[in-house]
């Protein structure tokens, strides 16, 4: 992985003035009577790979949406480096350094791969509409600088050949990868991945696992992962939170969670006997 993105890691590794990178405190969220989240708390530290698992409809995606401030919880607080995110708009959470991928791919289908990634750079760019429309020196310089960063990401994800294709035309697996790239382009400190390997075959899952581990190890970006592929989660997560019906039922290392009877009952089921 090359230059520009690594630089940022160095910048990030200075002394810290906060306790946790992200802290979710006793969040409650309900929609017209449906309790999606009922008192969840957890925290993610710098460079950590934290996973949230739980049955369908347990409120995992909703938690992501709360962190992004797409949903406004009725109760509770979300703190980013010690500062509350409550009341911000989603785009402001992005500016703070929270990036995300989506359960159902949410790329910009009519834009090319490069354009999608450059849109990820949006928060890190300054060009105003006036400067942009006349393509003045600074605007032009900024465009080209950011294009270089985007090319780095393209290299990293090995999607060179798709660069100029509208992403809507790409195969599912590649789209998932581009989505990861777009999130990386935001130069985040926390990367939230919502089921990054759903619908992927083993080979693609392996690729994706490698990318996630690289992101964590080499770029030092903290990862918040939601995934139903237990093989993957148990192998790569540092800590795991299990939720059911919006409530936390277990938290701890993969081993401890895996053998928790509540988790087995609500989520894992008795091991699938491999023939």
């Amino acid at each position: 992985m090359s230059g520009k993105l690594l630089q940022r890691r160095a910048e990030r590794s200075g002394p810290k003035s906060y306790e946790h990178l992200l802290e979710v405190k006793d969040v409650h969220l309900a929609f017209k009577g449906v309790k999606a989240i009922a008192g969840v708390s957890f925290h993610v530290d710098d460079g950590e790979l934290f996973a949230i698992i739980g049955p369908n409809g347990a409120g995992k995606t909703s938690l992501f949406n709360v962190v992004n401030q797409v949903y406004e919880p009725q109760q509770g607080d979300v703190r980013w480096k010690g500062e509350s995110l409550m009341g911000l708009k989603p785009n402001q959470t992005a500016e703070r350094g929270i990036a995300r991928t989506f359960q159902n791919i949410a790329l910009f289908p009519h834009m090319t791969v490069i354009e999608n990634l450059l849109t990820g750079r949006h928060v890190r760019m300054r060009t105003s509409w006036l400067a942009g429309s006349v393509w003045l020196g600074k605007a032009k310089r900024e465009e080209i600088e950011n294009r270089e960063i985007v090319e780095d990401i393209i290299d990293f994800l090995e999607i060179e050949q798709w660069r100029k294709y509208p992403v809507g035309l790409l195969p599912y697996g590649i789209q998932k990868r581009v989505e990861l790239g777009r999130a990386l382009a935001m130069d985040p400190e926390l990367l939230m991945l919502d089921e990054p390997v759903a619908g992927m075959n083993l080979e693609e899952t392996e690729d994706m696992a490698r990318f996630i581990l690289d992101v964590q190890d080499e770029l030092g970006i903290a990862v918040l992962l939601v995934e139903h592929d237990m093989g993957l989660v148990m192998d790569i997560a540092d800590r795991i939170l299990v939720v059911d019906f919006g409530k936390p039922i277990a938290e701890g290392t993969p081993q401890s969670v895996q053998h928790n009877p509540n988790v087995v009952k609500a989520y894992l089921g008795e091991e699938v006997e491999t023939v």
Partner: protein
Amino acid sequence: MLAVENLEVVYNDVVLVLRGVSLEVPDGKIVALLGTDGAGKTTTLRAITGLLDIHEGEVTKGEISFDGATITEEDPSTRVRRGISQVMEGRRVFVEMTVEENLRAGAHTNRDGERVKEARERVMTLFPRLADRRQATAGYLSGGEQQMLAIGRALMQDPKLLILDEPSLGLAPLLVQEVRDIIVEINQQGTSVLLIEQNAKMALSIADYGYIMETGKVVMDGDPAKLLKDEDVKEFYLGLHATGEQKSFRDVKHYKRRKRWLS
């Protein structure tokens, strides 16, 4: 019951995606169709159900027959009426309709009020979570709940042949097991099943027969026992070391990929 013979499909008049696929779903059996990403599994499904045209695709060769009748050129609604029902890839619930209305839409070809009622009861017992959320707008359901709805909707037709395209996508492990049990149960009630899956472990554990597709061709077929013994299947679909134990994803960073399918 269903026989696909030597099927060729072309998208946009240029992209040849299926190159002579043949497969068969015998009456009352579960058949698994496995394959890598982009192998053409969904395309095969579309050819069987007649939904290629929306994707600018076309069957250029081959024949599909169902219950002895050739259906290659038939309108999709006629095929549904014949008893072919499908769970489409990627959930595809009607997001602005309620769970209940989605199920009613699924029962479109089922004009027998009593049977519709029975079918609904069955779906509700299979997926209690849906029963709770009957009046909820489908678009607001969680990913997994939508997947349940998609399966439930397909069951509303009371089909003779049920085709499922990645039904386990996005489902929690426990639910994957449940869906597996449901498929077995439906099958025991007399419905033939064609199961398209990425989750080979799950699919092969219940199938009577399996096909493996790569880049538009069937590269291997046989009963599960035979497939499970194959080295390539073990490595690429089950993620097992040659020794038989599960690989760790932590290792992939240093893991070198082997050339596949020498055949």
